[in-house]
C-alpha cells in the first residue's frame, strides 16, 4: 500500500508519453504507474456519472483492462489523458443507457427523502442574495447529496459534459476530444445542462 502511494506520487511528475512509451514495450511498472496516477480521477468521474460505487469500481477496472489490452495500438494522435477518459466515459455511457430505467426509479424513490432542513439550505443557496461559495457547499453533506441526485436527473450526454468540465476540470477542447463532438456542441450542451440543473434544483425547493 505504501509502495502504491509512493508510485502514485512519483508518477504524477512523469510525463504520460514517457510512461505510455515504456508500457508499449512491455514495462509493467510503467503501466502500474499510469493506473495509479489516474485510477481515482477515472473512478470519480465514473461514479458521478453512474451514481453507484460498485458499478463505478467495476467500470474503472474494466476501463483500465481495456487500456492495457489496447495500449500497443495507441498511436498518440490524441493525448493519453483524453484517450483514457474516452474509453472510461464510453463504457460508462453504455452502462448508463442499459441501466437508465433503474437509475431513474431509484432517484424518484429518493426524491421525497429531502427533509425540511435540507430544503431550506438549498433555498438559501439558490436565492439571489447568497454567494456561490463551493467551500460552504462542500461542508453540507445534505446539499452534496442533492447535487448528486440532480446530476443524475440530467440526460447522459449533458451529464457527461458537466462532469468532465465541473468535476474533472477539462477544457472545452479536451471534452470535445473525449466525447468526439464539435466544440460548439460542447458549448451549447454545457450551457443547457447548467440551465437544466438550475431548474432541477429549483423544483426541489418548491
Amino acid at each position: 500500500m505504501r509502495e502504491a502511494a509512493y508510485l502514485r506520487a512519483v508518477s504524477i511528475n512523469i510525463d504520460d508519453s514517457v510512461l505510455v512509451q515504456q508500457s508499449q514495450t512491455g514495462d509493467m511498472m510503467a503501466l502500474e504507474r499510469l493506473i495509479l496516477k489516474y485510477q481515482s480521477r477515472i473512478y470519480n468521474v465514473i461514479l458521478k456519472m453512474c451514481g453507484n460505487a460498485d458499478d463505478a469500481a467495476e467500470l474503472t477496472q474494466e476501463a483500465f483492462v481495456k487500456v492495457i489490452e489496447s495500449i500497443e495500438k495507441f498511436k498518440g494522435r490524441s493525448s493519453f489523458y483524453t484517450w483514457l477518459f474516452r474509453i472510461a466515459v464510453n463504457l460508462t455511457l453504455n452502462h448508463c443507457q442499459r441501466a437508465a430505467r433503474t437509475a431513474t426509479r431509484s432517484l424518484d424513490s429518493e426524491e421525497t427523502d429531502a427533509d425540511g432542513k435540507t430544503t431550506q439550505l438549498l433555498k438559501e443557496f439558490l436565492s439571489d442574495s447568497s454567494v456561490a461559495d463551493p467551500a460552504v457547499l462542500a461542508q453540507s453533506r445534505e446539499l452534496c447529496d442533492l447535487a448528486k441526485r440532480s446530476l443524475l436527473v440530467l440526460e447522459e450526454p449533458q451529464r457527461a459534459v458537466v462532469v468532465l468540465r465541473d468535476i474533472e476540470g477539462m477544457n472545452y477542447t479536451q471534452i470535445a476530444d473525449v466525447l468526439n463532438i464539435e466544440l460548439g456542441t460542447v458549448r451549447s450542451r454545457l450551457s443547457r445542462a447548467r440551465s437544466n440543473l438550475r431548474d432541477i434544483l429549483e423544483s426541489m425547493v418548491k
Partner: protein
Amino acid sequence: MKPNPNLDELLCSFMDGELSVRQRTEVQRMAAHDPAVARRLKQLEKSRAMISSLPMAEAPVDMLERIKESLERRTLLQDQPLPARRSAGAWHLAFRQLVSAAAVIALLGVLGVVVYQIVRPVPHGALLPLPDIGKRVSMSEAPRLVPSPVVVADAGFTGRLELRTHSLVHAGASVERAIEDSGLSGRVQPDIVNSRRVYQVVGTRESVNRFVASLSGAWSNFGAATLQMEGPDSAQPVVVESLTPEQAASIVAQNSTEASFEAAKGYAITNYMARNMPGGEIRPLIQDDSGTMTAMIVIPRPKETGPNDSVPASPVPHGKAQVSLTIVLLDAR
C-alpha cells in the same frame, strides 16, 4: 428573466474562461449594465458551484490488484492473445472450406466412376479371346414358340454371356440341356479352350428366350454372370455385371435392337449401384417393378412352354431377327 440559450452559452463560456479577452470584456460590460444578465450569470455560477463542490471520491485501495486479477482471468479464459485467436478462427474456417471442397470433389469422382462404368469402351483383351467358331446353331422357327406381344422391325443383337462356375462339367451339361430344351438341337458342341467352354447360339429372340428360361433353373450354380452386348450402329458396347436370368430374359425379349440395348444399359446402372451403394438400397427398387425405373422396361419373365401350349399368331413375322449369343463358361476355381 426568461433564459436565453445564446446568452447562457456566452455566460457559461465566460465562467469557464473559454472566451477571448475582447469577449470577456464585453460580457463584463453587459453584466455591469444589465441586472438581468448579472442575475443569470450568478444563477449559472451557482449551478456550477453545486457540482464542482462535490467531494472527490477515491478509487478502492485494491483497484490495481483487481485490474491484475481481471487480466489474469481473461488470459486464462482466452488462453491466447487476440491476434492468435483470430488466426485460429481463420484457420478453422479455411479447414472447413477445404473439407467441403474435398467432399464435393470426392462425390464428383464417385459419380464419374459410375458414369464411366456404364459407358466405358471395352478394351481389346478385356474379355477372354474366343476361338474362331465356325459352327453356329441355325434355328428354325420352333413350334413351341411364345412370341413377344409387340414386334417391330428388328435386327436382333449380338452379345456375349460369361458364366463363372466351380464345375465346368455340370454347368456345361446345364447349358447343353437348355440348348436342347429350347429347340436349338443337339448339334451344339462346345469349343473347349484351356478351362473354358464356349458355345455359340444364334436364333430368334423367342428361341433364345426359351434357352434363358431353361437355363434359369441352373443359374444358382453360376458364381457370376456378365453380359456384354454390342450397341446398335457405332454405339459403345454395354456390360451388365451380376446379370440375373430375369434381366437376361428381359433384354432378349425386347422388340428391337435399340430397346434391348437400352434395357441392358438400365440393368448395368441398377446392378452397379446395387453393388456399390451402402446397404444396397437399390435392391428393393430392382426387385419391385411398380413405379420404379426398372418398371419402365418391359420385363417378361422367362417362361417354359410345353408342346400343347396354344401359340397366338404373331402380328408381324420376325423370324429374320437373329440374336447371336456367345456363352462362355469359365472355371471360377
